[in-house]
């Protein structure tokens, strides 16, 4: 007898079966060449950590439902009927054992999109009540907060007013401000929770005389980690509506991989009408400033050996690869690459929401080992990451593996290199994450 959960799961599976998903289910030749592409496998080389094996569980059910030979002779093709246990196993696989980093796809001779399969499994797990509670909570909290912004706006304005004082001290510009939801501004900057993603960028914008305004919403979108299109769209919609109502020319997303990925590459497909504004990462904007000579930078302000971690959502999945290097080469004197890097970079092990899950700590420390080894081999004293989740994970890896490095955002390095009058104060805001700070930030975001 089929349970309700199984029925719902099969319904979700069939609903999601479009061409890309079907191709991903059918094309795998089980050659296993994807094994070392996965940071889980590199950290723990066992067959279940091979991307092809991870997705096989989904293929087994797909075959049992959609393949003639599998229906009459399931043992021949390894087909299996769906059960509640299997759904729970899918949830574990999709949420805990894959960070949707796309590295296996880049390394697959077929170009097989295993992250697409894992996202489909996440959607099924969420629909059947098997998603991690914390991710559901974070997504729902963001949705609730967005329903009536007036409730928190008063408090937010107060925080901004405090931040503006610091901004004036830092920049030495007496009229420097953090304009909130200003109509007609060119750029709408969407930050994350916490001053550390607002103040450095505000200092840069105000120094170059940018025509900008700050969004009242947070960029992060936990709906996407759940594979829940409805929640992801609800969270993204409010930023899109805000941008439209303010008439901005572009949305600039804070240093956050998944927020950029959602807004730049997914959201334009969600709301039926073409965006009247463009979407960029702050990293791209900073690179533009550097190339246009709009920033006066002193690279000697950052003399330590510095390396850069490519966030998967920004880099391999988002195409922001060289912009970060343009900035880094302008603001540092001792920059070195991790090996491998760019589209071949290893995931930090904390992506796709894992860093927000307390129960995932052990697994992400394990999965982050290749990244920790890379950092160690680079000899860097500072690791820059243009993604908040990556920075939190790198901070934890730093602690766990005793790397002895500082972890910081790109904008922080830029502010240092700008040699602003109040730079010492700015340095206090640098996000040099350690494990305790990481958990504080995570809690604050709730």
């Amino acid at each position, binding site marked *: 007898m089929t349970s309700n959960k199984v029925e719902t799961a099969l319904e979700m599976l069939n609903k999601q079966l479009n061409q890309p998903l079907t191709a991903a289910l059918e*094309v795998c030749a089980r050659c296993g060449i994807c094994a070392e592409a996965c940071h889980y496998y590199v950290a723990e080389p066992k*067959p279940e950590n091979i991307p092809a094996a991870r997705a096989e569980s989904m293929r087994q059910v797909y075959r049992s439902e959609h393949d003639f030979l599998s229906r009459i002779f399931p043992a021949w*093709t390894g087909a299996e009927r769906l059960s509640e246990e299997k759904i729970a196993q899918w949830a574990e696989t999709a949420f805990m054992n894959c960070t949707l980093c796309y590295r296996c796809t880049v390394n697959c*001779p077929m170009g097989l999109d295993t992250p697409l399969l894992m996202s489909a499994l996440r959607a099924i797990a969420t629909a059947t009540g098997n998603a991690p509670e914390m991710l559901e909570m974070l997504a729902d909290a963001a949705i609730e907060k967005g329903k009536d912004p007036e409730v928190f706006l008063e408090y937010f304005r107060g925080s901004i007013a405090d931040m503006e004082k610091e901004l004036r001290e830092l920049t030495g510009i007496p009229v420097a401000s953090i304009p909130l939801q200003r109509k007609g501004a060119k750029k709408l900057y969407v930050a994350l929770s916490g001053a550390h993603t607002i103040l450095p960028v505000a200092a840069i914008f105000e120094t170059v005389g940018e025509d900008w305004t700050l969004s009242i919403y947070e960029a992060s979108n936990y709906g996407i980690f759940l594979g829940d299109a409805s929640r992801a769209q609800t969270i993204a919609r409010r930023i899109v509506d805000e941008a439209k109502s303010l008439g901005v020319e572009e949305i600039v997303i804070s240093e956050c991989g998944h927020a950029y990925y959602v807004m730049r590459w997914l959201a334009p497909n969600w709301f039926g009408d073409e965006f009247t504004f463009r979407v960029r990462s702050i990293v*791209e904007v900073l690179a533009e400033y550097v190339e246009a000579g709009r920033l006066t930078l002193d690279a000697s302000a950052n003399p330590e050996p510095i390396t850069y971690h490519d966030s998967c959502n920004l880099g391999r999945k988002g*195409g922001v690869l060289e912009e970060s290097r343009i900035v880094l080469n302008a603001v540092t004197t001792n920059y070195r690459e991790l090996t491998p890097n760019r589209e071949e970079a290893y995931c930090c092990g904390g992506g796709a929401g894992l860093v927000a899950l307390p129960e995932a700590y052990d697994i992400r420390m394990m999965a982050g080992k290749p990244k920790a080894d890379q950092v160690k081999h680079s000899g860097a004293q500072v690791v820059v990451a243009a993604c908040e989740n990556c920075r939190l994970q790198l901070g934890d890896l730093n602690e766990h593996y005793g790397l002895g490095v500082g972890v910081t955002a790109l904008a922080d390095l830029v502010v240092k290199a700008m040699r602003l009058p109040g730079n010492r104060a700015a340095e206090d805001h640098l996000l040099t994450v350690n494990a305790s700070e990481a958990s504080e930030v995570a809690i604050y975001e709730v």
Partner: protein
Amino acid sequence: MSFSVASQILAALAIIFTVFAFGQRLQTFSRLSRPVDQAKPKGSLQTGVLYAYTLGMAPWSKESTRRHAIAYMRGVAFHAGIFLGLLLLIASPWLGGVPQVVRTLLGIGMALGALFGFAGLVLRFVEPNLKALSTPDDYFAVSIVSLFLASEALWLFLPQAQVFFYLVSAAMLVYAPLGKIRHCIYFAYSRLFYGRFIGSRAVLPHSQQGAR
């Protein structure tokens, strides 16, 4: 009716069945929705797709194939042998007048293809990861295709082996749409989707990274 003619008819029917079955699959596939990406591309979709089908397949283009260059090239040679083998099968009724030297060269090619196929089969038995990933379908698929290439090589060397060659070909062709061999028809789509992804985002080829 001689065995030779009967086997030829059987092979011809198998080809018709395979083409029909693959056609059906492709028709079903084409009825599925294909998401249209409305995000403004950063790079060129066409460049990405071209790369995915060409340089992106080169052994030096990705870490996995650099690391497993020999295994990858074995696979490429095996698949190249299969495509040539299928072309020769279709052309086989008209190959009677081909000089023996050409038949021998083609036969060597097919034999190498078979050898690469059987090597893959051995790997599936001995390499722990491959063994863990494999189903009976995998073993059978590699075996029947390798046997097809071996029988073709035998026929090219020894025309008397024609009946055997056609019977093996018919078995392989009938199995193709049913089991793992059918991944071949999805390959082009998978690379297409991959190419569009990396192209629109200007991730690859690297030359696109100048795009803003």
